[in-house]
């Protein structure tokens, strides 16, 4: 019915941007004809900057009533910022948002709700100990003289639940007792209680089992049949194919393709529009591969509900990268290797010695830079040097008395080696930038005799310059013979740093190959389980 090519100035820009990207084939010209309603939401050149980052850098988006519009993009492409802008959490710095024909700039999440845009976040924002009905009407309770009207709330909730095809959920049951799928229904009930005309769903299927996803789709179809528009975010291409009408692809905060037909656009096209990110990754030159006996051997490691049958090795001086989405079990795997989570099955050995706890891991020469720097790695009020020596201050101590002078000197040496800025090790670490904080976390293990370093998202929240420096640090560590096991959501990072690449999906290692033998598109395809390279999946670990 319509073509995605220039409809107005905005989309013209988008397609121009598209054409300048040499990796992207010509944009498709046909629309699958779905998207029956009028345009309800239109974003034109929307820009949102955070200090140091241009999170949205010219987003175009057009959503029609009654359609399921899918947003696709790698981590950091700007999807979250975009939906938070629609939800009134962030405020756009530039560009134009039109909602139902009116300029739209919600000041608060409440304002967005009132205007009819509801957002269902990945972490469902329900109050576990309140009832289904109370959650559905949370923030706009049905009251009379300050007293809640429980009966009418319950019956209105029941009405909404019936609309959602879930009349069996009792409105007075507490949300805590519901399974994840049920909670999601309550979130949608809340959206409908606001008379939402657009529901944004951020990876709604991530928390669901397979049969529950079917149910979710049924609900979505019922919503769209009532003319409600849905923005659907998922990394799973097969879902997008099944439920989606049109797809908009984001990369580096920009729309690289708009309004592609969800069913007929080839996977290769979708993936290619997400890849080849322009953000600079400056990787140190690769070393020639060297065959050595493995340092770390992980054999058949499993944790129920998180990951299964994980086997891998890391040799001294080798960098092994694990690519996978959040929720694929990669962080859990790393923490289990480190002994921070108890394995249900399988073994971890370092230099032939079993690792069973964090204590034994550290004593035997393992170090870890966890995913959440602030909550898992740092003492924010303490000075840099104390953070640097957090794992090693006992080694400096004599008879239980700390050697602050010795610690400071060692920290200063490490700070020099890491080019820490500012170099002052007495500053509270909270005053450092994210990149420099991360250097301290990595540096912590340089002070230990670390043989194996586990890095979970080492460059999250780190600016481009510091990123390159961190890559250099990781590279230098490997040169010194330290084995590195790295987890990252950023596929180019894994490919650029690692000698060997593992791909994790839904708790399993589904692929392993030297980094030189796989490209970004193929990795993304594996992560999202698209149609390609199923042969290589079989090369992984047979169950």
């Amino acid at each position: 019915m319509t073509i995605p090519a220039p409809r107005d100035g905005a989309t013209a820009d988008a397609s121009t941007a598209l054409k300048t990207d040499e990796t992207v084939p010509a944009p498709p010209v046909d629309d699958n004809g779905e998207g029956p309603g009028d345009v309800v939401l239109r974003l034109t050149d929307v820009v949102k900057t955070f200090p140091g980052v241009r999170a949205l850098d010219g987003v175009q988006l057009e959503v029609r009533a009654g359609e399921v519009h899918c947003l696709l993009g790698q981590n950091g492409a700007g999807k979250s910022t975009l939906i938070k802008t629609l939800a009134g959490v962030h405020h756009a710095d530039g560009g134009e948002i039109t909602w139902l024909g009116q300029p739209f700039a919600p000041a608060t999440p409440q304002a967005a709700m009132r205007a009819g845009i509801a957002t269902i976040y990945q972490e469902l924002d329900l109050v576990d100990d309140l009832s289904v009905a109370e959650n559905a009407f949370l923030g706009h309770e049905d009251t009379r003289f300050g007293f809640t009207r429980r009966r009418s709330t319950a019956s209105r909730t029941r009405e909404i639940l019936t609309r959602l095809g879930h009349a069996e959920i009792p409105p007075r049951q507490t949300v805590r007792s519901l399974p994840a799928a049920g909670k999601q229904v309550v979130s949608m009930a809340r959206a409908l209680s606001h008379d939402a005309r657009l529901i944004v769903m951020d990876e709604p299927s991530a928390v669901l089992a397979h049969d529950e996803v079917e149910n979710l789709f049924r609900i979505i179809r019922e919503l769209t049949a009532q003319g409600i528009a849905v923005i659907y975010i998922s990394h799973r291409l097969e879902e997008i194919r099944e439920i989606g009408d049109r797809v908009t692809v984001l990369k580096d905060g920009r729309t690289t393709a708009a309004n592609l037909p969800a069913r007929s656009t080839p996977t290769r096209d979708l993936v290619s529009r997400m890849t080849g990110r322009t953000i600079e990754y400056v990787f140190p030159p690769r070393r020639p591969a060297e065959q050595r006996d493995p340092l770390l051997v992980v054999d058949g490691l499993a944790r129920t509900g998180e990951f299964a049958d994980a086997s891998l090795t890391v040799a001294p001086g080798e960098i092994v990268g694990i690519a996978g989405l959040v929720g694929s079990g990669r962080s859990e795997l790393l923490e289990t290797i480190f002994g921070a989570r108890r394995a249900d099955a399988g073994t971890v050995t370092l230099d032939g010695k079993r690792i069973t706890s964090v204590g034994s891991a550290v004593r035997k020469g393992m170090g870890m830079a966890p995913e959440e720097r602030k909550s898992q790695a740092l003492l924010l009020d303490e000075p840099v040097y104390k953070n640097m020596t957090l794992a090693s201050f006992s080694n400096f101590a004599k008879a239980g008395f700390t050697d602050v002078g010795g610690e400071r000197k060692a920290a200063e040496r490490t700070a020099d080696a890491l080019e820490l800025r500012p170099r002052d090790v007495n500053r509270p670490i909270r005053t450092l930038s994210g990149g420099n904080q991360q250097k301290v976390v990595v540096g912590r293990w340089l002070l230990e005799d670390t043989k194996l370093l586990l890095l979970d998202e080492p460059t999250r929240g780190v600016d481009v310059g510091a990123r390159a420096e961190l890559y250099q640090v990781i590279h230098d560590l490997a040169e010194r013979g330290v084995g590195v096991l790295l987890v990252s959501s950023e596929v180019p990072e894994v490919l650029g740093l690692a000698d060997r690449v593992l791909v994790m999906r839904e708790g399993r290692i589904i692929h392993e190959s030297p980094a030189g033998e796989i490209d970004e598109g193929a990795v993304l395809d594996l992560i999202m389980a698209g149609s390609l390279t199923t042969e290589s999946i079989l090369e992984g670990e047979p169950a």
Partner: protein
Amino acid sequence: MTTQTAPPEAPTKQERRKLDEGVLRNLGLVGVLVLLIVVGIITKPDLYSDPTWVKNNFLTILQQASAIGVVTVGMTFVIIGGGIDLSVGAIIALAGVWATTLATQSYGAGGMIFTALVVGIAVGLVNGVLISYGKLVPFIATLAMLVAARGLAAQISAKQTQVSANDTINSLASERLLGIPLLVWILGLVVAAGWVLLNRTTFGRRTVAVGGNPEAARLAGINVKRHTMLLYALSGLCCGIAAIMLTSQATSAQAAMANLYELDAIAAAIIGGTLLSGGRGTIVGALFGVLVFSTITNLFAINNLSTEVQNMVKGAIIVAAVLIQQFRYKSLTQLFKR
């Protein structure tokens, strides 16, 4: 690798500013102390004109502060380590009663002291095990211990006041060394040991790490559970010491002794700048906190004022101290953010 990041220009003299924060807080408490003394001088000029009285009064204040001061040192460690110990008063009562049973007294002063310390440590360890390994919330575990330990103390003492017949123990409260009461010496030693332990040992470093960010401490290889357990044992040890001190002061022990000490110790630690959420606190500040309270008590006593008013003033001081801290902490972090 050639990429240069522009680091935010360093706010200079960082360390000095940090030092200032601690010193300022303690200076503030010294200011409060001075103020209280000035109020004393104004309200009772006749008493303050007698130098001997003034000296003895100061020593009285210190002696009054000694037992609670020792407890506060232990409490400060627990709070910095991210916990709370509501059972300190009850532990003192149990240790005091246990140390003054006829059976224990038959072993002499050494036996009594040993008993008090062992009971204190043991009860502290029970708290610690429940919290670390039983995963009870510190508030609940020590609340339960508060009730149970006093119950046990009442059971052992059959609700009677147990008189200490041991002259060595009793002389602790009456004897002086170099003109200073022995109890004050004990307080001084415990405070000094506590300061060294917190600031100069791996134990102290672990305490700050465990309280400041338990997950980070755990992932750095620190045995968080064991350390947490030890912190409660340390608090118990301090209670054992305090039990002996109070027993010598009263020349007796009973199940109701050291009533509400937990509140005084927590309040003193808090107004001394210890963060209730853990990770930050000082021994010196806690000592000043204790001294402020005992000076207020003294001020009210010399003016023959009721304890009711005294408690109201204490409450106001706690609120004021915390408000001032929050304000200062906020403005400091704002400063760093720039």
